[in-house]
């Protein structure tokens, strides 16, 4: 589980990128990104999430976004990325066996 807070933009995206890639390099196969604390996310942030999703897939893993705020979710929809990412409405919706589960 990676928890992201604040604003994701050109300046902060590299930090998010290294956090996500580190988690994948540490062997995480199912990366759950808690987006509930993200107030703002621009196209650079979307690109970083997408790049991590691709990296996860290369390792036969998944990346899920959880509880994006409505404004962020709208941006995912506008850019078509809502259909690319697995998006969970809330942390409660996650299967209990986090870490071993997988989503199709």
């Amino acid at each position, binding site marked *: 589980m990676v928890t992201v807070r604040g*604003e994701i*933009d*050109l*300046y*902060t995206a590299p930090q998010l990128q290294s956090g996500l890639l580190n988690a994948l390099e540490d062997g995480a196969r199912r990366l759950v990104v808690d987006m509930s604390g993200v*107030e*703002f996310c*621009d*196209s*650079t942030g*979307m*690109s970083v999430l*997408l*790049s991590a999703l*691709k990296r996860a897939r290369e390792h036969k893993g998944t990346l899920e976004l959880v509880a994006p705020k409505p*404004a962020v979710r709208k*941006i995912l929809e*506008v*850019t*078509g*990325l809502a*259909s*690319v990412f697995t998006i969970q409405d809330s942390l409660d919706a996650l299967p209990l066996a986090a870490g071993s589960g997988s989503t199709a």
Partner: protein
Amino acid sequence: MDVTFSIALPREAYTVAVMRDFLGEALRSSGICAECRFAILLAASEACANVVDHGFPAVGYQVDARLLPDTCVLEITHRGRRFNPSRVPLPDLEAESGRGILLMRHLMEDVAISGEPDGTTRVLLRKRLAECAAAPPDHGECVAPQPVLH
């Protein structure tokens, strides 16, 4: 009340958030609803991020904002490399870049990018606020200041 301001910033990645803070506060105190604020701040961020990424060799850029009763007009100018939006292809669904322009066009009524004879590149973003003023309360009331989202 009309609000007009200009900010000149160094062409550095950290300044896009500075622009957002400044513009966001101006929009908030002008009573612009949360949804419109988000749209305007995102479009402005995309325009400024493009300048930071591609505006070499400009050392700085400027954001001019005019908040009129029914319209928000932003102009982002710099004197770096020309930017030609027609050369930006529509991104594939899974492409990792090229969404900035797409977002700006979706979020704003007008997006115009022009190169001027003196070497200035100007991105003009315009959003009508008329619909915003009529938005139901669950979208935020445009007549009253909203809490700052932090």
